[in-house]
């Protein structure tokens, strides 16, 4: 085995990852703030009023990135859960634990902003169509994961039980994603996809993509801070954590 992969594995231990995560935070938090400022300026000031939807369409600059993140964070949680189950790795369980609240937050934001967009666009705040219902189920999966963890005192057991829940629930992700194709939904189909030309003006598309990158960087930064707190909470009794907490910023 090469020394390179050994060095990589070193960071799989919470004690080594704690200071690394601390150093990484500003590299994600600062770009997140700058991208959000640029995206908000483009989306709220520069982008023109939509011919059909008026200014209500500007909600999509947060709705679409939040909805993407709500699904993406769940997939990343499923990845860490699979690692945690297969290798019984402590840090992987902690990563899944750290991602869940932010995933739940983005899911709520996607539902909230979608509702406020749906009222002027479709005449209703809510409909039980496949897209919205499956996204609501995603919110319950996040809540269920957090509640399950909360109910189990032993963190390693909570990792395993949570991982099973997340991996079973991952079936909901393709259902959300393809719901607008599989069912005749009130929710419209994809406006942006990798396979077809985007059905929106370049300036609107740029604002939406910049906001998407802002949410990515934000999610990484906030998760890194939360995982540091979790590392201390779970390993604080062991000597290294107390030393780190005092010595490393």
């Amino acid at each position: 085995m090469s020394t390179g992969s050994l060095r990589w594995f070193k960071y799989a231990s919470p004690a080594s990852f704690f200071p690394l995560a601390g150093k990484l935070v500003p590299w994600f938090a600062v770009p997140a703030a700058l991208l959000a400022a640029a995206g908000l300026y483009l989306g709220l000031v520069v982008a023109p009023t939509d011919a059909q939807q008026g200014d209500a369409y500007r909600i999509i600059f947060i709705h679409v990135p939040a909805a993407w993140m709500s699904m993406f964070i769940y997939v990343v949680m499923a990845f860490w859960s699979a690692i945690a189950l297969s290798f019984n790795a402590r840090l992987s369980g902690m990563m899944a634990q750290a991602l869940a609240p932010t995933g739940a937050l983005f899911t709520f934001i996607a539902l909230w902003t979608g509702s406020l967009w749906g009222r002027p666009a479709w005449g209703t705040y809510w409909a039980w169509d496949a897209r919205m219902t499956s996204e609501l189920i995603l919110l319950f999966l996040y809540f269920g994961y957090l509640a399950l963890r909360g109910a189990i005192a032993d963190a390693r057991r909570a990792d395993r039980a949570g991982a099973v829940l997340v991996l079973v629930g991952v079936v909901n992700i393709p259902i959300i994603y393809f719901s607008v194709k599989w069912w005749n939904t009130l929710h419209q189909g994809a406006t942006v996809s990798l396979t077809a030309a985007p059905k929106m003006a370049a300036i609107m598309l740029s604002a939406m993509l910049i906001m998407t990158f802002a949410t990515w960087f934000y999610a990484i930064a906030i998760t890194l801070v939360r995982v540091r707190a979790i590392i201390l909470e779970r390993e604080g009794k062991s000597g290294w954590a107390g030393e780190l907490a005092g010595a490393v910023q």
Partner: protein
Amino acid sequence: MSLTDFFAMGGYGFYVWGAYLVTAALIVIEIAAVRARLRNARRMADAGADE
């Protein structure tokens, strides 16, 4: 475009600002909560190491 026009959002101000302000508030709350959690965890770990 005047500032009044900007806030009116062509009559959709309630929906647009309802979406943006709630999102902003939730993000601010999350940042504050996570920072408080890390501060608290540091204090607890510090206390644990001194025992």
